[in-house]
């Protein structure tokens, strides 16, 4: 079912997107601009169960609670961001717990409103863009064609074609396989060079957080597709995760006050190692 005019939807941004509050914020602004009121929902309290997939008993409880919360919210559509969440909803959640909503991916919703989005893309974004494309999820939602279509509406931006498709549905799927992320990044840089791209557009959050470090020592830009749409709409934003990840000292880049607010111990044990980990290549 298509989202109707002046609709109200739940924007299920997943869990690891908490690294990118600005993307959640920008998506709600973009949806509002095309006539969709979006209520973001995510984090561990809205888990799809994939984090506990090795134990169906735990995963089932998490997934059922998430479906029940969406049912109680009373909105007819849950708009997804994360391909894992989207596929889990289709394959393992909705068939088990009755849903009072339909699911639609954010790219599908924006494509359906392209006529309303196009006039809002007024700012030139001079960029020669290669899409960071995986094999997976394309069979479920055609993100590898829909995202270039949306970005292609941006004045000044050129989408470039290359046949490279990385295994998996996003980079978190290949990251545990030794050497695969580095191979993906090497192949991506080679593809960018081959087509003359200066910008790599990521689709998903896990790919973005892995790819941003490719900017180090190179004259390329890594941006999420939402960042590019927002730039074209004149929506101010900062990709703080990229700034922190590429900073010589992430602690100094974030600042002591914000680290204290996040929790010093948690930051030191769980956040800082991620921001300081070596680059893949």
């Amino acid at each position, binding site marked *: 079912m298509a989202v109707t005019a002046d609709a109200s939807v739940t924007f299920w941004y997943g869990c690891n997107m908490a690294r990118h509050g600005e993307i959640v914020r920008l998506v709600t602004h973009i949806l509002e601009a095309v006539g969709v009121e979006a209520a973001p929902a995510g984090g561990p309290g809205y888990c799809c169960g994939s984090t506990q997939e090795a134990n*169906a008993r735990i995963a*089932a409880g998490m997934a*059922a609670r998430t479906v029940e919360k969406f049912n109680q919210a009373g909105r007819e559509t849950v708009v997804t961001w994360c391909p894992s969440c989207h596929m889990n909803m289709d394959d393992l959640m909705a068939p088990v717990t009755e849903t009072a909503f339909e699911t639609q991916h954010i790219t599908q919703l924006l494509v359906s409103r392209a006529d309303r989005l196009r006039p809002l893309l007024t700012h030139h974004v001079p960029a020669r863009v290669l899409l960071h494309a995986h094999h997976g999820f394309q069979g479920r939602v055609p993100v590898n064609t829909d995202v270039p279509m949306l970005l292609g509406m941006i004045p000044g931006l050129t989408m470039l074609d290359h046949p490279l498709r990385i295994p*998996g549905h996003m980079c978190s799927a290949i990251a545990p396989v030794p050497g695969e992320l580095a191979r993906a990044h090497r192949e991506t840089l080679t593809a960018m060079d081959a087509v003359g791209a200066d910008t790599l557009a990521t689709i998903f959050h896990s790919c973005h957080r892995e790819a941003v470090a490719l900017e180090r020592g190179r004259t390329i830009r890594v941006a999420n597709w939402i960042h590019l749409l927002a730039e074209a709409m004149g929506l101010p934003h900062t990709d703080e995760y990229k700034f922190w990840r590429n900073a010589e000292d992430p602690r100094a880049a974030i600042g002591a006050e914000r680290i204290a607010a996040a*929790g010093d111990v948690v930051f030191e044990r*769980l956040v800082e190692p*991620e921001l300081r980990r070596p680059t893949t290549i």
Partner: protein
Amino acid sequence: MPDLASGLVAHIRDNSTRLAAACTACGECYRACPMVPRAAALNAAEPEAVMAGIRDILRDGAGTPEAIAFAGACTRSGVCTPACPEQLDAAFLMRLASLRVRGTLGEAPRVAGKHDPGWSARVKAFARLTMSEEEQTKWL
């Protein structure tokens, strides 16, 4: 309180049985998979034999070392589904096999899972860095 797990367990079992019965173990999904050339354990494997092992896993069997390696190597590329001559949802079949070898129904894991014990705390910590208090209250 209803047993939340029973529905998912039954769903996984029912679909495992259904897809194992429909799969002919022709091996076309295996041949299409981009992870096969990247998995050393599959270097000398025969596609038909691997898929026969996958069917065994879906039927509560032990599987074979190659089938377990193939299920463990799945990264959800999804190119297996259009390759299936029986028009099965091969990606879902492999997803189920992947869950089974990780012990989702309580069996001993045959492949290490990717469980991250710090996941929830890490997500919340990042949320405190990137979202305002009001946003955290509304969005989490």
